[in-house]
């Protein structure tokens, strides 16, 4: 394992210290792994979070017009309810708090327990659960689809709605609308190494790739031979097309998200394929985001997210934010 770190057990702690010194509009609630804005808004507040290792998610999306608080667990481990509760308490201005949770058993359980505790203290708390990953077929008997990179659209758009003074119910409605209209799928060339374990998350051959994976270094739903960018993108988009609410002629936003070690140049090469295929199918790409928004440590690979846009979502997507990672 080759990493820039001090003590492995201090990984998250050191990272959060380095983050708040870099971004003066962020602060850490002392004794916690919770990052909040230094200036509290008088508005509905948004809290998200999850395991660490997804940087810039989630603390990088804290700022005016996006999140009010981000809770960082250990690497790839959902934060504990007491930490989430601290975040809820810190950001609530009396107008209520929306939790943006990615659909993982751990995240859902820990955030829901925190929500119950916060409600018991008289704080109005609502939640939405993001499940944009179409690699996993959902069914009522299974755990359902995961939340991956598409989550950042929820942060941005619901955050803009909250900043504009909308009510908790309205912000929740808009967040859910994003969730209903965003679909993602990812692939990886190389695994990552969780610092505490020191072992690569999987072995993979020089001419293989994983398709349909999440953001926790896990293998995907399939391992297949490595092919060229055009073919990979078309494979991922086909799966997304099977689920997306957007039909040809609709406007969409695209996110080509790097998993950590993939150079931006390769993400641009992927975006070339994405934009060609979408244009050919008759979709109108109104906005494109390219870069690392939701990573999996130093995994090599990327995901594509497609969000169906309407005027409401487009305006909120374009609203300004001070979040460092947007």
């Amino acid at each position, binding site marked *: 394992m080759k990493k820039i770190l001090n003590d492995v057990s201090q990984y998250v702690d050191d990272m959060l210290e380095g983050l708040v010194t870099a971004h003066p509009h962020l602060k850490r609630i002392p004794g916690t792994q919770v990052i909040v804005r230094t200036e509290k808004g008088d508005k509905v507040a948004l809290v998200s979070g999850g395991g660490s290792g997804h940087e810039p998610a989630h603390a990088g999306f804290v700022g005016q017009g996006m999140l009010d608080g981000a809770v960082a667990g*250990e690497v790839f481990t959902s934060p504990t309810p*007491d930490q989430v509760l601290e975040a809820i308490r810190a950001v609530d201005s009396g107008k209520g708090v929306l939790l943006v949770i990615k659909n993982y058993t751990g995240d859902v359980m820990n955030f829901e327990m925190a929500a119950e505790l916060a409600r018991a203290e008289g704080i109005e708390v609502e939640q939405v659960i993001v499940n944009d990953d179409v690699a996993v077929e959902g069914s009522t008997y299974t755990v359902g689809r995961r939340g991956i990179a598409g989550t950042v659209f929820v942060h941005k758009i619901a955050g803009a709605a909250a900043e504009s003074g909308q009510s908790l119910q309205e912000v929740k409605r808009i967040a859910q609308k994003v969730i209903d209209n965003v679909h993602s799928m990812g692939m990886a060339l190389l695994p990552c190494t969780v610092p505490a374990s020191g072992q690569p998350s999987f072995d993979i051959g020089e001419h293989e790739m994983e398709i349909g994976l999440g953001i*926790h270094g896990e293998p995907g739903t399939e391992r297949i031979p490595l092919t060229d960018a055009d073919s990979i993108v078309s494979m991922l988009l086909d799966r997304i097309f099977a689920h997306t609410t957007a039909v040809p002629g609709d406007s969409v936003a695209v996110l080509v998200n790097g998993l950590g070690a993939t150079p931006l140049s390769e993400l641009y090469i992927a975006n070339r394929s994405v934009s060609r295929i979408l244009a050919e199918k008759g979709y109108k790409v109104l906005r494109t985001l390219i870069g690392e928004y939701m990573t999996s440590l130093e995994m090599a690979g990327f995901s594509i997210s497609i969000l169906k846009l309407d005027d409401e979502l487009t305006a909120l997507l374009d609203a300004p934010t001070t979040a460092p990672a947007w």
Partner: protein
Amino acid sequence: MNHLSTDTFVSFVEAYANRLVEMRDVLNNLDNRIGDGDHGTNMARGFSAAVDKLKSTPPPDVAVGCQLVAMTLLGSVGGASGPLYSTVFMKLMAEWKGLTEVNRVQLQQGLQAALDGLIARGKASVGDKTMVDLWTPVVRRLAETESVWDGADLMAVVKEAVLGTKDMIAKKGRAAYLGARSQGTCDPGSLSSALFFEELFAAVLPKGAERIQWHTLAL
């Protein structure tokens, strides 16, 4: 069986914590194959914290001990296993309110309540490839063999339950995302629960219980 006194409870938690540290890499490795590679780290971190807590605040009875463990796990484990193991100790606390000694019947009822709590919290069914697949047959065997608990017999159930998860296709937890690729690896949470029962039986059975040699098995 011997009663589970407050002291025995504390040393059981301590033995379990040590066992988790010993088995951390094995648990991480299983979780690496079908999850995100942190189950051993999570469990070792949480139970080591629980031991620290029990040492710095010696509990007056078993229920308070359970509460301390539940709260410590809740605040230090995270992930899926944090709330689940925390639920186990919360249910035990509720069942054993005020007890300084837990007898056979109370132990069995406590564990049944813990299993019910696990299922209520995680909504997993038998066959979903989660720790419920370990807890269900073990708790059932405890009920079936109410009058004589035999260490070797119980250990056989534990071992079979862990190995039984190997060929399952996961429907709950992270391994579910792998679909059919989750087959061929034992569920890490079932193994950590197996260690829980191994140490519990060693603590309360008069003859103790022989530990399973997990490293000799194809997990």
